[in-house]
């Protein structure tokens, strides 16, 4: 695999990966900006428009016809967040030319479509209404998935008053307030000020792709800056609790912890040992030993120095589960980590890191992560660092972990 990153302009990076084993091409444009509750929905709606039509392909019907003629090529956009930043993506994936039955140049057509979507979006009133509705529906549907909703509410209390408290598409109210003009303005601002990262994965190196973007971006008046994704979140003076009650069958809890350690690798391993695998302390104790739940897992947000543990549980067992989660964390703080636990955490990570490169998406997500961390490193290099972490470092990192806040979703019928 060949991998190279070049600067196409002011804060515009282009990274390409050539890997002959793939039969597809994948291109993803990231637009990174500050998360701000005043603009978050404008950006989400505007970005949604870019994957729907463009100034040359002006209707949904025409766009769909083009994409299906190109062997079911995909065009997609989404809004996401990391740290205190919002990022918007426009991506496309398509079959490599060598599989085109009728000899079409699928790549050339798709590059044309994507660059037209990016540089010549169509802020037509009808398309705007549809895109806005899609974003509103997306916001409403966040409550359909109770686990995701639990994690979202947990974030909102952990990061109260910080940009990271916002959802990727904003709230229903902020999305309702978006107008065609505000979306158009937001998109113009985004193209001028966002940090842009373009990633392209294909079977063969194709220099015309970088040149195409260089040439198109040269026509945009840029006044951008590179952003930092790290925005540590302060620990609350005392742990806060937010409770909501719904007509659900299972209660859910999410515990936010914050840490004060710069040893990210040690913290990463701490999380795997605590609740990252089916042999982790939470799985083996909260699920297997106490039979309290089906899932109990831990994830880390290194940009916000936060660890969150979530679990689906009987309402009557909530306190028992919370006590056990904290007891298992204390076990790590007290140095009770077996050699097997450390070894299996490392092997699980190694397994995950070694599969890097098996999908086009794995290249893109790894190097986007490097950009967010402002640290370019290969999976193998990172693995070597992780293998150097000692039990003592994990314990020291764990000792800084403190409960910040808890979200509980309760079921009414259990009362």
């Amino acid at each position, binding site marked *: 695999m060949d991998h190279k990153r070049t600067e196409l302009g002011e804060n515009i990076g282009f990274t390409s990966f050539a890997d002959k084993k793939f039969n*597809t091409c994948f291109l993803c444009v990231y637009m990174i900006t500050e998360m701000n509750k005043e603009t978050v929905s404008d950006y989400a709606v505007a970005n949604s428009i870019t994957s729907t039509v463009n100034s040359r392909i002006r209707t949904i*019907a025409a766009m769909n016809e083009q994409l299906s003629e190109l062997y*079911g090529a995909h065009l997609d956009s989404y809004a996401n967040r990391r740290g205190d930043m919002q990022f918007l993506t426009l991506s496309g994936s398509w079959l490599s030319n060598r599989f085109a039955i009728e000899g079409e140049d699928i790549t050339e057509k798709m590059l044309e479509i994507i660059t037209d979507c990016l540089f010549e979006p169509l802020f037509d009133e009808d398309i705007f209404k549809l895109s806005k509705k899609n974003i509103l*529906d997306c916001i409403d549907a966040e409550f359909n998935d109770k686990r995701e909703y639990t994690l979202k509410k947990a974030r909102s209390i952990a990061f109260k008053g910080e940009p990271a408290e916002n959802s990727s598409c904003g709230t229903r109210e902020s999305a309702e307030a978006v107008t065609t003009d505000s979306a158009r303005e937001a998109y113009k601002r985004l193209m001028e000020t966002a940090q842009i990262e373009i990633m392209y994965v294909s079977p063969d190196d194709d220099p015309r792709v970088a040149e195409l973007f260089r040439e198109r971006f040269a026509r945009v008046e840029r006044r951008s800056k590179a952003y930092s994704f790290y925005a540590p979140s302060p620990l609350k003076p005392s742990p806060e609790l937010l409770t909501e009650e719904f007509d659900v069958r*299972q209660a859910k809890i999410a515990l936010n912890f914050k840490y004060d350690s710069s040893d990210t690798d040690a913290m990463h391993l701490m999380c795997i040992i605590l609740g990252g*695998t089916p042999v982790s302390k939470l799985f083996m104790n909260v699920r297997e030993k106490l039979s309290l739940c089906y899932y109990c897992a831990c994830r880390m947000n290194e940009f916000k120095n936060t660890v969150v543990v979530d679990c689906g549980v009987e309402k009557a067992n909530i306190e028992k589960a919370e006590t056990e989660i904290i007891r298992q964390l204390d076990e790590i703080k007290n140095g009770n980590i077996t050699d*097997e636990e450390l070894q299996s955490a490392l*092997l699980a990570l190694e397994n995950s890191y070694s599969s890097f*490169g098996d999908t086009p998406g794995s290249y893109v997500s790894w190097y986007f992560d490097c950009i967010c961390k402002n640290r370019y490193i290969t999976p193998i290099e990172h693995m070597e660092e992780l293998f150097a972490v000692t039990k003592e470092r994990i314990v020291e990192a764990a000792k800084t972990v403190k409960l910040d806040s808890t979200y509980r979703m309760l079921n009414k019928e259990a009362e």
Partner: protein
Amino acid sequence: MSTREIITCKRTGDTCVYVKHKSGLDILIREMPGFSSVYALFGTKYGSINTTFKLAADKEYTEVPNGIAHFLEHKLFENEDCGVFELFARTGAQCNAYTSFDKTCYLFSCTKNYTENLRILLDFVQKPYFTKENVDKEQGIIGQEIRMTNDNPEWRVLFNMLRCMYHAHPVQIDIAGTEESIAKIDADLLYKCYDTFYNLNNMTLSIAGNISVDEVLAICDEMLRPCADKGLETVFPDEPADIVQAEIREKQPVGASIFQMGYKCAPCKENFFKKEMTATLAMSYISDASSDMYLKLLSEGIINNTFGGEIFAGDGFFSAIFSGESESPEKVRDAIAAEVRRIIAEGIDERVFSRIKKALYGGYVRQLNNVTAFASIMINAHMAGCKPFDPVDIVSELTAADALEFIRNELTEDKIVLSVIEKM
């Protein structure tokens, strides 16, 4: 004596190997040069619908509690000495399992030590260990899984629809059963089900990625214990062709109302992939995002970009389901029914049909390039009595007349069920 056959995709030239192993097991293997990972599935044709069965030596059929196939899947992860997760943790592999309507599969993915992981997989699935204590312990865990899935509106909308579609076929039963039904499960029943369905003659191994065919087969020779074919017979109650009721609505705490609208079709007895792909093409044609029907529903705000269709089919059941978010699902149902009538009257536009075929072809070819997806394709195809590359080859042979025939014969208005999960 094992037999070996190389299966080739006519269109792309990709190959995989099928082996009928001397133990009775069917094995599908695909070496994928350049990939780092390995994905393996060891599965049995035993899912939630297989609630009534007998072996050739049995006089009577045995009926078992709902959810037992799924319960068995959980319990197979415990060995006499230690948990299976711990064995895989020592190698770094990720392991898991799933139970569907008609199969149970145990799987691992890894990038190193695949031979050792394959040994663990083949060993633990052939070595059940059920006790009263470990069965009792699992009740609480699965009880929580059942509650979790019952809070999942996508799950509820599907099972509500299936209950309205099928009178007697067990596809309408929740895969995990209910808290009441799993309370009836004990170690003896689990052994009975295990001995019946976990016979290598009823099982398939599928493995793809950074592997060698010869290494895989050597491990199979070493680990597989030959099984006599005991003449397994599963039966389903007679299922009438008509539906139970045309509509069901349930209020749930959701942010967006969702629906599934399904046509009950005749179950497929042979050429499963051909019927499934004909149906997929027909549905893609009906719900094509360039069609007048789609654009009208979209512009009126009745559907959004979650709208789509899929085929839901297996042993004794086959339905064509349209789904999405909508606050007016009855309007979607009526529009689709009207579109079906229009297509039957006016026929299929060859140009549009050809474009949809190209899109479907592209989707299948892409999956050949993914270790996980292809290993799954191999086991699913084989258990459905087909070959893994059949979709790529069949799609190019299907005609607009095939799709029209499916629409005319199968998508009849008296077989429509609309299931809705509404906001409270």
